[in-house]
């Protein structure tokens, strides 16, 4: 609103995720790999293992080519990307934490210099001095993790900062330490994962087996400890943030499952490498790396998922609207936009007057400034598909838009704006996803009624309020459903037909095993 919204056709969220995942996969290696280099060098020198030293020299080159080149550029890439997609959040973060970033930059500078001197110094420096550069490298790299971790965790759990705006309150926030522990373990594990790659191309079998076993020793214990660190992390995430993640957001739930599975696969592969180091092969090493990338990617998706609807929890929504009014916020907060309207608040809107003829065009602009940070029309989290699935017509869309913040346990910010603007947005969305008449002409299916009208907020499980509190007596329930707001004031005022209500009650009662179900002849039962 304050800034223009970059229309990324395939999905802004997806773009950030891509850049971020590639970057973290390399940048964590840059930290752990540094420790790996010095410790391996020491080990090789102590035992006079010349072949190991030879490999390590080669591995250093690989390390520099991956971390100093790709790692550094993709790090700038994250900066560029968040500035493009989330300028308001970036601007807030910069002003709150520029000194943190400044400190990180000093470490970054030392880190890059040390990496290059370590690489070029292999043949030139005496061993002690060479190792000294290695230690400086690792120290600086870890220090930059220590700093950046404060800023990343801040976004999820800003803690007391939201009220006192103090640097250190935001920095040492509730998830700071568990996240640091988790990331440290990730760094160590990745050092081993990458080492498998260069190890696997060694011709000397005995050497290869030695390196593989040594690398696997970096992976297995780190992975074994990781669940504990992650558990600690989970415990420190405030409950209100969790509820949105526990809901039916398919993306996050799938990512949790995928992440868990990939994690176990990774562990199994690493244990195999530990037990059978001689069987290491480049293809195997690459599979390990890809699985690790997938696991990390899933966890990043989960973290993003938990944080929704916020970019900075309890402070700034993903669509750059502030959660509460505060001084100097430019009026970009939910309450003020509700009063003044989007069209009078947003700067980057072309068509500002709401003529009935322009309704769809205006709706499109509102979509851009309020929804496009998370949605597209046709691609990633595309509304065409989502709305078509629910069979909503324009009126239903408009009613539902009034309650976006309740859907899926609160993954979305509320719609902010006037009722006319909401109508315009609904008009636009109904052109994106025109109603498809449902082909089933037979008796109404209660489950279908539920999916269409209730499932965005309610889930099929006994403890859901719908199943708990809908009156058990079929007739009472059917009558009660005439007005949803009477049941609970925040529910949208959807008008269900008599048949729909009967079918729905029938199905609900079947689900919760209440006697008298099935009388309506609904197909119920199936989820």
């Amino acid at each position, binding site marked *: 609103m*304050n*800034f*223009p*919204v*970059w*229309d*990324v*056709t395939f999905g802004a969220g997806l773009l950030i995720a891509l850049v971020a995942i590639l970057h973290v996969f390399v940048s964590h290696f840059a930290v752990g790999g540094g420790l790996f280099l010095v410790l391996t060098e020491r080990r090789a020198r102590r035992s006079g293992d010349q072949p190991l030293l030879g490999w390590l020299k080669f591995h250093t080159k690989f390390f520099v*080519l991956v971390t100093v*080149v*790709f790692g*550094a*550029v993709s790090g*700038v*890439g994250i*900066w*560029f*990307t968040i*500035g*493009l997609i989330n*300028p*308001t959040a*970036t*601007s*807030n973060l*910069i*002003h*709150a934490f*520029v*000194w*943190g*970033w*400044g*400190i990180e*930059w*000093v470490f*970054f*500078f*030392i880190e*890059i*210099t040390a990496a*290059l*001197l370590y690489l*070029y110094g292999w043949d*030139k420096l005496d061993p002690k001095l060479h190792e*000294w*550069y290695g230690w*400086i490298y690792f120290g600086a790299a870890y220090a930059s993790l220590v700093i950046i971790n404060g800023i990343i965790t801040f976004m999820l759990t800003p803690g007391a900062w939201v009220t006192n705006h*103090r*640097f*250190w309150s935001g920095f040492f926030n509730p998830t700071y330490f568990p996240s640091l522990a988790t990331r440290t373990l990730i760094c160590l594990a990745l050092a081993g994962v990458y080492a498998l790659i260069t190890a696997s191309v060694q011709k000397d079998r005995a050497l290869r087996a030695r390196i593989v076993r040594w690398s696997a020793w970096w992976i297995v214990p780190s992975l074994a400890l990781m669940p504990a660190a992650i558990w600690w992390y989970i415990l420190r995430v405030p409950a209100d943030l969790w509820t949105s993640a526990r809901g039916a957001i398919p993306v996050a739930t799938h990512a949790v499952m995928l992440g868990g599975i990939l994690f176990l696969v990774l562990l199994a592969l690493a244990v195999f490498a530990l037990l059978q180091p001689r069987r290491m092969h480049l293809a195997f090493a690459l599979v390990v790396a890809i699985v690790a990338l997938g696991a990390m990617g899933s966890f990043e998706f989960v973290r993003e998922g938990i944080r929704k609807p916020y970019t900075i929890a309890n402070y700034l929504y993903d669509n750059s609207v502030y959660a509460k009014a*505060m001084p*100097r*916020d*430019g009026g*970009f907060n939910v309450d003020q936009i509700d009063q003044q309207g989007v069209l009078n608040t947003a*700067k*980057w809107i*072309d068509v500002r007057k709401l003529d009935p003829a322009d309704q769809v065009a205006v709706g499109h602009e509102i979509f*851009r400034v309020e929804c496009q940070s998370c949605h597209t029309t046709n691609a990633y989290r595309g509304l065409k598909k989502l709305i078509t699935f629910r069979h909503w017509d324009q009126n239903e869309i408009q009613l539902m838009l009034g309650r976006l913040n309740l859907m899926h346990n609160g993954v979305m910010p509320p719609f902010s704006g006037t009722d006319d603007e909401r109508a315009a947005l609904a008009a636009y969305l109904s052109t994106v996803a025109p109603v498809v008449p449902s082909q089933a002409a037979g008796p109404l299916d209660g489950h279908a009624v539920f999916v269409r009208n209730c499932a965005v907020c309610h889930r099929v499980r006994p403890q859901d309020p719908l199943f708990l509190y809908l009156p058990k007596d079929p007739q009472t329930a059917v009558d009660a459903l005439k007005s949803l707001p009477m049941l609970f004031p925040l529910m949208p005022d959807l008008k269900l037909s008599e048949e729909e209500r009967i079918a729905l009650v029938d199905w609900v009662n079947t689900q919760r095993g209440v006697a008298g179900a099935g009388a309506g002849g609904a197909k119920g039962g199936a989820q």
Partner: protein
Amino acid sequence: MIQPSLIPNVDPNPLPAPYWVFELLLLVTFVLHIFAVNFVMGGGVLALTAKLGFRKQEKGGRIFFDVAKLLPILLPAAITLGVAPLLFVQVLYGQFFYTSTIVMAWPWLLVLACLVVAYYGFYYVSYRGKRHPGKAGIVMLVSVALIVLIGFVFSNNLTLSQTPSRWGAKYFADPTGWNLNLSDPTLIPRYLHFFTAAVAFGGLLLVLIALSKWERDREYARHVFQFGGKAFLYATMAQFLVGIWFLFSLPLDLRTLFLGGSLLATLLLAIGLAAAIGAMFVMARALRQEKIRLGAYAAPGLVALTILCMATMRDVLRDAYLVRLFNPQQLAVRTQWSVFPLFLVIFVAGVALWFVMLKRYGIFAGAKVPH
């Protein structure tokens, strides 16, 4: 027409230190960054010129590789030194900077893809080039072309960020971010001004390379010195024309600032020009008398003065562009005393450690540049 309504508000967080602190940091780190960038770009251009220009002589190839092996060090220097001004420009000018980048989002983002490719190209030439000289030339050409392109995108963004009146039309015509700022009359001269400076810097880089070979291989070093020194001279001469073009492409009110309108701006221009002319005389004399040290110390010293003046003028120009839209006095400030001093301490310690690292490596003791 200026559309003030499109210019974003600054976010609610106050500046965590006074304005001038960031202005100073921005200026200093930008100057360092642009030094490194100029060396990379100009060095690359001259390396290619040497390879093509002296094709029949072995010297051309040698110059090519002598520059090429420095590029994998100079480029990360340019990148790391670039991160700092990127940070500080966002602190002070975020509302202009983010907006123009969003308007031209794709070219801006693709800069990084170009950078990665160019970077690996430099490594390829440096590691494998001698074994495949033909391929090395092509890879180098691609890498240097990409670097030249990146500079062009940066110039586009910079000019666009200072002219908010151009934003609206571009954005609303194409919100997907496929824009540049080609219609700005200052764009081409501004970019050429920078490009020409880079070539001059490439010349200085060669003079420095000549210095490092002076005792061991006089004949070759002499050749490199002449080539680099002349490149510097010709580029700097051309710069006078380009600079005048740039100056006259500026809107009248901004141009007059440098021609007497503002004492500071005029003084900076005068000193910058004088230093550049001085550098040319020094270099010409050094070449004639084969005084490498004169060319390798005095000329770059004067050029550094010029760059400092020019970079400050660049700031003056930016503030003049934005004068009605941006007033630093209006920024809220609340210095973060709990962390700002820590930054200063770490910064000083970091610089000290950095020098110790180079010293222990032996770089100041005349050791070969690492390779």
